[in-house]
């Protein structure tokens, strides 16, 4: 059974059609690249799956059930986590505080609920160890490098038992060495049986980790094929429109 299915999904912003009739499905544990030029509709698609936008038409199914994902919280409850392009981190908080933002661990003290600082720091440290990152749980994000920030954003997705992780341009703003780092993180997610949708401009990244690639152009899906059956040249042609469809 497919993990995520999109059936004829479209999205309008007023008179502008950002997505039109997009259908595809993702199997559990599959790493799929989502490519397309700026304005092709990748981010809109991600925001629909992660609950920020509602589709204007069509429907989204998760684990076979029609899913109405009204909010990022709802997406998380289903097991969909997102690493946003700008990472969505609050600079003035610690790594642990960012990881647990919106789902803090608390204990009851009479009618009050207080934070379990130590438990959250310990769990965050565990996650960083799992990701083989030296990021410290109680350091402020303000003082961190691009790679460390990425590690915090990815660690956040590992907090709950995610089944699908959306990554929006995770390698856009970091150094070459850190790119290798993030790609190995994706491999580790796949090994753990987690499906990943990787949105990227970088052809080498997609060809290094994905088993399938979906290409978008002007709000429509123009290709959806196994990596083994395609080439960077073909994907480039599809993105730019030099080839209509594959």
């Amino acid at each position, binding site marked *: 059974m497919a993990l995520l299915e999109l059936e004829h999904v479209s999205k309008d912003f007023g008179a502008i059609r950002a997505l039109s009739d997009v259908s595809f499905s993702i199997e559990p544990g599959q790493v799929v690249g989502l490519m397309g030029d700026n304005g092709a509709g990748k981010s809109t698609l991600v925001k629909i799956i992660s609950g920020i936008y509602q589709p204007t038409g069509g429907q989204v199914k998760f684990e076979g059930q029609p899913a109405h994902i009204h909010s990022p919280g709802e997406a998380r409850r289903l097991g969909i986590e997102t690493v946003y392009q700008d990472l*969505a981190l609050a600079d003035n908080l610690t790594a642990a505080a960012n990881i647990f933002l*919106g789902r803090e661990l608390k204990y009851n003290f009479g009618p009050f*609920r207080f*934070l379990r600082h130590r438990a959250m720091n310990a769990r965050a440290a565990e996650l960083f160890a799992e990701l*083989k990152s030296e990021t410290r749980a109680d350091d402020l994000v303000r003082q961190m490098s691009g790679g460390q920030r990425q590690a915090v954003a990815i660690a956040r997705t590992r907090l709950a038992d995610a089944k699908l992780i959306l990554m929006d341009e995770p390698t856009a703003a970091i150094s070459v060495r850190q790119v*290798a*780092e993030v790609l*190995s993180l994706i*491999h580790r997610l796949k090994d753990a049986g987690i499906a990943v949708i990787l949105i990227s401009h970088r052809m080498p990244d997609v060809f290094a980790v994905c088993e399938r690639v979906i290409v978008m152009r002007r709000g429509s899906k123009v290709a959806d094929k196994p990596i083994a059956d395609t080439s960077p040249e073909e994907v480039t042609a599809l993105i730019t429109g030099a080839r209509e469809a594959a």
Partner: protein
Amino acid sequence: MADQTVQGFSNVRRTRFWQRGFLASQSAYVLLALVVLIVVMSIASPQFLTGGNVANIVRNFSFIAIATLGMTLVIITGGIDLSVGSTIALTATVTSLTMGGLNAAGFHPFPGSALIISVGAGLLTAAAIGFFNGFAIAKLKLSPFVTTLGTLSIFRGITYTLTQGRGTFPAGPDKELFVTLTSGRLFDIVPMPFVYLLGCAIVMWLVLNHTAWGRYVYAIGGNESAGRLTGVRVDRVKIQVYIICALAAGANGIIISGWLGSAPANLATAYELTIIAAAVIGGANLAGGIGGAAGAIIGCILIEVIRNGLVLARVDPYWQQALVGVIIVAAVLVDRLRSLRSS
């Protein structure tokens, strides 16, 4: 290939303890300045550390400090509330008017009842003002500066309309109790306003540092969209913050009117500037994300110690305002130099 590429993010150096937490904050520097100032003052003037003078200082800074706590919350979320002076006046006026009205109507079923009802009416007014500000800012997405500049004028205008520009006076059987609770002293030593301030500050510290709500307040100031994306109910928290700020200002208004024995229609005019100054001196960052209860109080004490010191030193008290301005700039400058050095 996965594991060979991983050497970890090794450009990580542990920051030293004095570069972290409270010790690294502007509040700590200002506290140091305050201690130095107090030492200098007590050497320069034998009157400075007398019991009576200390009690005066404590009472005077408590008059604005509760409102400064509320203001600090708003500033942490990256907002500003210019309407606190008007909120102080309107809350005090409504409280006085209600007490006077209950007295005229002869409504007094049990001792303290008139006081409870009138303070309740005052705080309800304050909460309504805060909701108005918060709703306009969080839901209608108006700029906090412009919104509260507007409500500054609106609620001052309503205060003048209600009173025709005259002062109102708390009256009736509960007046004695009201005066005792607002300008009396606990155990004949500690001024009551300071007791309330201490209570509020402890609650605020606890909430900011040890609850999820407090963390959301900081997160909104640090990166509002990150808060939204991670499921924080940003709009709700913002509205709550403005309500708390207005309630804090209103509480200060009630306390001041109790001490004065009246609520003049021009009460607390331009206090918003002193309150914002105290918050900023105490380390609240107007860009959002940084600030705390301790800093707010330190800022208030510093302003009052300077004012008091100038009076004791027989310096023209009009210099106070200029000096407070100098300290605001100096405090921000020191913070700027420090962050330049560490980055």
